[in-house]
């Protein structure tokens, strides 16, 4: 009986664990708002990167733009100085969309470029 309880607990825990991993790593339907935009500020650092950081910012956006749907809000990728860039997408991103986009931005996907997401905010689209 005791062994059966242990097996039951393990099975239930495994099922919930797999479901949690699925929710965390798979694409789910998100709630997005057309009148909002998600604004992302990224700081880039290059190490022996042979081009400018502006090019690195465009390359990073080009690499990660496929993780979410939506449009890039004007003026696009905006340099704020000192390796910091800001861009916004509309409609606003939901929880899973933000996870995918920010994960891609932080994932060292561009050789010799290290990126750090400094802020993510949902702001009204004006």
């Amino acid at each position, binding site marked *: 009986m005791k062994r059966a309880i242990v097996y039951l607990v393990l099975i239930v825990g495994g099922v919930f664990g797999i479901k949690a991993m699925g929710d*965390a*790593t798979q694409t789910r339907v998100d709630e997005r708002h057309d009148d909002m935009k998600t604004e992302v500020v990224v700081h880039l650092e290059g190490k022996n990167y042979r081009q400018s950081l502006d090019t690195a910012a465009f390359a990073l956006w080009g690499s990660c733009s496929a993780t979410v749907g939506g449009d890039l809000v004007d003026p696009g990728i905006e340099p704020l100085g000192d390796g910091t860039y800001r861009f916004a997408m509309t409609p606003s991103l939901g929880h899973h969309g933000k*996870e995918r986009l920010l*994960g891609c931005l*932080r*994932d*060292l*996907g561009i050789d010799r470029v290290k990126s750090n997401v400094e802020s993510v905010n949902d702001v009204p689209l004006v």
Partner: protein
Amino acid sequence: MNGRRIGYLAAIVTIAASGYYFFVYLTRWEWNRALTSGVILLAAEIALFGALVLDRIGKLRGSLAPVSPGRRDPRPQVLARIRESAPAHRNHFAWLRPDSTNVFVPVLLGAGVVVSGVAWLVERVARATAGKQMERGLALQLDVLAPPAEGLIVREADPFSLFAPANGPKAGVS
């Protein structure tokens, strides 16, 4: 804590940390980092598994070894038991005992040696004497086949006697 335990502990900590971050990076959608953590996790697992297997093999070898390398003197109890169970000493020359009558084979062997020596001696004497005697006998036997000593043609005192008439003197010749 010896070096082996420290190594095991480091491997276990590495496995735990890399496994934790593997799932953390997966949930953060950071695939490159997750792959790196997964590779470290696999390497640590293989290292730990290999170390455990080698350790187990070493223990098995130690248990199978008859004598530990550092041991020089055998245990006296074991040595005494081995000597107790040793077979009785076997006398390989028991047939030479004076009280034994089973001496036929050695006597036969000894007689063979003596007879061989005598035969060798006889053969040497015969080679030195009988050969010459037989040669003399053979030469005497061949003597009858020899041609006459004075030759096969009888020489006459007068070589012209061949021309003399066979029946008395001829007429006109005096």
